[in-house]
């Protein structure tokens, strides 16, 4: 494998090679995503050892089902979705999941949100995420830490883009309220 050439290949090109000619190319995909995915899984379950297990299992699951991946779509959304499912299953199994309360809310003030700059959010987000319900912290993590677009988050979480926007907006308000108290 020519490393320099391979680094320039898109995920989808690598997947095509794995499917059709050389399964060793799958190592490139694992290398490319493992760090991000472990961070993402860790944000979901708050246990690094389990996060690593989840990512490993997800890569194996993705490989087994690779022929089901539609190459016209983004591989990153697909693998994030698999990690999401795996993490939620593990969290349920160990009953450590933060309650996913749909009606969890608080009295917010829209004006407070306006002066909340993106840079400030990025710095604070990891510190405060553990105090926010998963329902809101997950889209927040994907947007600010994993730098996913609303469309990709919508694909990963299987919720409409409007809901993604609403949850991120609420997450910001929650962070403003909870995290500034610390």
């Amino acid at each position, binding site marked *: 494998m020519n490393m320099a050439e391979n680094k320039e290949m898109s995920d989808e090109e690598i997947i095509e090679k794995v*499917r059709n000619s050389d399964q060793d190319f799958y*190592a490139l995909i694992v290398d490319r995503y493992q760090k991000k995915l472990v961070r993402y899984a860790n944000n979901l379950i708050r246990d690094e050892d389990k996060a*690593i297990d989840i990512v490993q299992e997800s890569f194996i699951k993705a490989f087994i089902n*690779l022929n089901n991946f539609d190459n016209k779509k983004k591989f990153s959304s697909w693998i994030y*979705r698999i990690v999401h499912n795996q993490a939620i299953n593990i969290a349920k199994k160990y009953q450590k999941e933060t309650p996913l309360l749909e009606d969890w809310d608080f009295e917010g003030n829209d004006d407070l949100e306006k002066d909340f700059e993106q840079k400030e959010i990025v710095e604070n987000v990891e510190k405060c995420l553990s105090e926010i319900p998963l329902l809101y912290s997950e889209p927040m993590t994907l947007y600010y830490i994993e730098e996913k677009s609303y469309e990709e988050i919508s*694909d990963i979480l299987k919720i409409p883009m409007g809901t993604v926007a609403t949850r991120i907006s609420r997450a910001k308000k929650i962070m403003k309220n909870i995290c500034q108290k610390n």
Partner: protein
Amino acid sequence: MSKELKNITESVMEQIHLGKAKMKPKMYFIIGSILTFIGLISSVIVSTFLVGLTRFSLRAHGPMGQYRFDQIISNFPWWTLVFAVFGLVIGIWLIRQYDFSYKKEPWIIILGFILIILIAGWTIDVMGLNDNLLQRGPMKRIMQNYSSEKN
């Protein structure tokens, strides 16, 4: 962390090389999609027929409410209902297994199905297809069970 990350790559590739993780063939997913489609279509057809049958039965026995209700309960082909529900559950499960692009929540799909089934059942009954089934076809016996007490 970096050592453990390196282990992820090694562990995943080892499982692939040892053949413990094998890629499922494309045909597996094609067949799965076809079965999903057939399962859902069958479920819609059976359920639509049940809605049509219920409406047909209500029309066939006049305005005696309790009698009509008892008659429906006693003559209802419950196995078809079980078949329809089973088909629907399996179909939705298969969709979730195979179709990554599937974005809607299951209850939206279920509500959509129920709506389609009710509309289709009502349309079939209004168009008189139930009356045609009474005269001929494989459903003749079931339909005649519903109409026999009328005479």
